[in-house]
């Protein structure tokens, strides 16, 4: 667990030493353009026959886009460990819900020995 480090961050914040990171606009512009490009890519990719890879590519592009938004627009890249941990915890539980539920559905078809 990262209580210790998190606490350090907390104390830092409390003593007013915490310096707020300000992302320069050029980063936002770059991310914005990248997101638009990826949107075009994902639409294009859906028209190409790739078999099982179609949904995988679509989701992969979605993940990349979402990661960019989280890291830069939402500023997680420059934020405290606590925020990173929070984001991770959310993803983890989200994946647990989806993953373990789907695991049941998929393994039902594996037969009932």
């Amino acid at each position, binding site marked *: 667990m990262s209580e210790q480090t998190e606490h350090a961050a907390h104390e830092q914040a409390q003593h007013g030493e915490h310096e707020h990171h300000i992302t320069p606009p050029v980063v936002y512009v770059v991310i914005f353009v990248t997101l638009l490009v990826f949107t075009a890519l994902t639409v294009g990719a859906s028209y190409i026959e790739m078999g099982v890879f179609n949904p995988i590519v679509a989701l992969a592009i979605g993940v990349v886009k979402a990661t960019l938004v989280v890291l830069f627009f939402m500023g997680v890249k420059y934020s405290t460990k606590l925020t990173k941990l929070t984001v991770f915890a959310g993803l983890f539980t989200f994946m647990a819900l989806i993953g373990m539920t789907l695991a049941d559905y998929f393994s039902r*078809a594996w*037969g*009932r*020995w």
Partner: protein
Amino acid sequence: MDHISPVIWQFLVKWLTNFALFPPEASKIAPQMDALYFFMALVSLIGLTIVILLVTSFCILYSRERHPVAEQIEGSTLLEATWTIIPLGLFLVMFVWGALLYFRIYTPPANAMNIYVVGKQWMWKAEHPGGQHEINSLHIPIGKPIQLTLISQDVFHSFSIPAFRVKREAIPGRYTSVWFEATTPGTYHLFCTQYCGTNHSQMIGDIVVLTPDDYKKWLAGSTSGMSLAQSGERLFASLSCNACHNAKPDARGPNLANVYGSKLALASGGVATADDAYLRESILNPSQHITQGYAPIMPTYQGQVSEEGVIALVEYIKNLNSDYRVEQTLNTTDLLPEGEVKTAPGATGPQGQPVAQPAGQKAASKGMVKQ
């Protein structure tokens, strides 16, 4: 005794005559279940005793009178590791033991006799392969593995026989199954244990376990004159299933003989085992389960066939061991009043039509466990 209040008198009488503490063991699995149950009870008892003994003795030894000043102790990694690892070990033993039991209860043997059970608010309907129907009771012989294939017509129900230590939910839209082998003749409780609405507590019945001879008598006495497969055959014809599933070279639907238990290559790419569940789904949601090489033209029969009807059809298809029966059905359909049955003229198709798909995939059909 008259001066004793009737309530207390009644209570005492029940106490003496009718006081159950442990359910009867009437199936092969029951003693196995009870072994694990008592093992767990023993472990719990020991654990509880340890806790109670420790707490009591600490309370006596270290009460404020005897021990006015507490000694501060941080903890003990060794002790804590002990009471982490020992319970963990015991729990893992219980897990493995429990899982083995679980699979034994839900894995019917290949030679099990299959009885279909339909649950609906608020009754159980059993369909025996011989065509016997029962409501809220189930007659079975001892010494023979019985598999129940359960489905619900409406809400979740749960088929529970405490004396056999088995239970399985009957859920709408899907078959579930459980099996048991009764050992002691008698009459046992059948409960619905999943809450299913107003008369949930009246959805009870009797499991009547008979000796083989009595069972034969019962079978003979309650026959409806037509086996389940035969009523399935009749339904098969009246729904004109044989218009397509007729084992002809140019048939629009796959030949159904010997299809049960075989592995089918699906148009969507997967492989499915043709078990009860698959057959049911193919009747109700055919386009989801199209066999490779066939077109998605079969209409759905959802809403047209009752669960009992589907069961009869499934039972019929299960027992289709050769194309002959299909031919026979073809001929019988000519006798039916509906002239709309579109069978190809000259119904003398050869036998060699592959089952569902060309290569010898049906080889597996017999030896495998059927569900």
